[in-house]
């Protein structure tokens, strides 16, 4: 048996040979792709408007949507765009002190009433009307040391909000009280709220209705605008012909452009996530309908899955756009046809808003599968086979579309001329 050191050296030598051949292939074969990628990326960064369009606008759109969505939900459930204050009747000094001490930890606003004022309010019927419209009413009933929480039992949102308020404010208050005095308050409700929800988990759940589809919609929007500039506009200007005349293979030109598009779009999407995390940290909200705090709940593994899905989806979107661009000659028609997948994505966005957890087969549908995976991540239902399914559903069609577009060189050369 050879000594261990020579065994290692033999493998080291083999590895070196392999590595150097790989480097030679990389330098020779990938030279064109590398140059195109460098050029396309530097082109975006050389112009601040282009850079903003790629990196800031999608993030801004997402932020705006996420900030507007809770108001929309509020409006739909309560008729008011702003968070309604919590009506607190007959609050003991200990509760007021507790709120003072924990000031800033929650964003709830309150309307305080004495017992008499509340009785008048209740008798007038306004209290019932208010509860029906989404008011949360908290009554400290000192006789039997019970806190009653009033909410609309027919409205899931109202119940969720009441649950959140209970878990975020009342339960810690009771614990605090028990610690201080040893006495325990029993908590009952007008409506049977038995499950205590973590509002952050709930925010994730709510976010899963919108964020995944919005992200993929933004990915497609970015890919579409970039691909129409990289291919359709350049072809229209004749600049694409100039590239085809270089000693770089047309396949490498196409691949270089698609890869640079994927890199840029993935970067822009990661940037959107970064914005959301910052926002999540700055706007810690206790509203059950708020989507802002979702980021803090994502675990590293889940984030990694999302980080993998984003470039894969961007690549698939790019190949779809490429196929559309090379199938159609006229610039006007290209732009119109590139917008068609947006209709599918919009429909998916609405579907996701009202649908529950995704079924197994949904992960095998290109693009929809990516949305389903991000949704599963947000709902903490993510398992690794879903990622495998999504990778298959994204990479396979990408390869088929690439093959269709450029394996027959005629598709790049003659066909466009035939249509002119």
């Amino acid at each position: 048996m050879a000594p261990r050191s020579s065994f290692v050296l033999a493998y080291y030598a083999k590895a070196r040979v392999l590595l150097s051949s790989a480097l030679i292939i990389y330098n020779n074969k990938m030279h064109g792709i590398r140059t195109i990628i460098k050029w396309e990326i530097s082109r975006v960064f050389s112009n601040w408007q282009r850079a903003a369009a790629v990196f800031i606008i999608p993030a801004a759109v997402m932020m705006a949507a996420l900030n507007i969505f809770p108001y929309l939900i509020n409006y739909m459930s309560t008729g008011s765009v702003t968070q309604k204050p919590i009506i607190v009747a007959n609050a003991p000094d200990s509760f007021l002190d507790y709120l003072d001490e924990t000031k800033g930890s929650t964003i709830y606003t309150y309307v305080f009433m004495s017992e008499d004022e509340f009785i008048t309010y209740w008798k007038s019927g306004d209290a019932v009307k208010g509860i029906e419209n989404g008011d949360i009413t908290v009554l400290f009933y000192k006789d039997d040391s019970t806190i009653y929480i009033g909410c609309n039992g027919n409205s899931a949102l109202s119940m969720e909000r009441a649950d959140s308020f209970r878990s975020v404010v009342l339960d810690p208050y009771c614990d605090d009280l028990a610690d201080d005095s040893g006495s325990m308050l029993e908590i009952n409700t007008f409506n049977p709220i038995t499950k205590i929800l973590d509002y952050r988990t709930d925010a994730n759940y709510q976010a899963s209705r919108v964020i995944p589809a919005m992200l993929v919609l933004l990915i497609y929007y970015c890919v579409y605008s970039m691909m129409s500039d990289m291919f359709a506009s350049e072809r229209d200007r004749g600049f694409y012909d100039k590239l085809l005349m270089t000693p770089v293979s047309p396949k490498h030109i196409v691949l270089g452009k698609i890869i640079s598009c994927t890199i840029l779009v993935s970067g822009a999407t990661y940037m959107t996530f970064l914005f959301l995390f910052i926002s999540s940290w700055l706007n810690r909200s206790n509203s059950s309908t708020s989507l802002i705090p979702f980021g803090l709940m994502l675990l590293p593994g889940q984030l990694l899955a999302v980080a993998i899905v984003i470039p894969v989806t961007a690549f698939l979107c790019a190949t779809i756009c490429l196929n559309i661009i090379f199938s159609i000659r006229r610039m006007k028609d290209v732009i119109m046809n590139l917008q068609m997948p947006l209709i599918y994505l919009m429909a998916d966005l609405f579907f996701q808003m009202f649908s529950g957890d995704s079924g197994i087969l949904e992960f095998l549908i290109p693009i929809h599968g990516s949305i389903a995976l991000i949704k599963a991540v947000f709902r903490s239902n993510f398992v690794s086979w879903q990622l495998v399914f999504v990778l298959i559903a994204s990479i396979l069609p990408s390869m088929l579309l690439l093959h269709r577009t450029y394996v027959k060189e005629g598709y790049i050369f003659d066909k466009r001329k035939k249509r002119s």
Partner: protein
Amino acid sequence: MISVKNVHKSYTRNTETIKGVSFEVPDGVIFGLLGPNGAGKTTLMQMMSTLLRPTSGVITIDGLNARDNLLEIHRRIGYLTTEVRLDPMSTPDKLWDFFAELYDIPLKESISRKEAIFYKLGITPFRNKKIIELSTGMKQKASIAISLIHNPPVIIFDEPTNGLDILTSKQVTDYLLELKNEGHSIILSTHIFSVAESLCDEIAILVDGRIVAQGSAEALSQQAGTDTFEEAFFKIYVENHVEE
């Protein structure tokens, strides 16, 4: 050297744009393609530059078949068309560097060639200006410079002086003559008789996808029995054009 043998091109089944064209262009010769719009000049030039494939026939450049040796051919030809609009937000300098990298030209060589061509074509004063800010002539000069980045032995120019003022046009034609003297084969198409007459060693008149006459400007005038080359062209055109 370029050799075009019995080349046909059809875009659709029933119509043939190029109908069996053959010619040869030796080194150090400027070959002009002259013909009315729709005669097939651009199609022929795109086939020679490999942007289009002939339906039948063979095009060879320095003995290499254009159909099979795509990338090698690209190293040997410089192609320019007036339709090309360069990236509007880029500068001639940046575009040169980008194409030099695509052609894999060593940095030192690229810089010295850039300086020389930019100086000759008068690009230096606006080399760092964005393409969008340049005039038509300036853009055309930048396009020409980039087409010649790799010092190709064969140059194919589709109407290189189209849309240029007299001064810029003169600068371009002078440069083409200089390239010819250096031994480059140049094929150019033009509508301007004076350019064809003064620049081209040999002219082929293309009518309805066919070369109907070929020779020097003088020889063509003699052949047609006219005093000027312009008259010769019109006579040859009328004799050979078939109304469809």
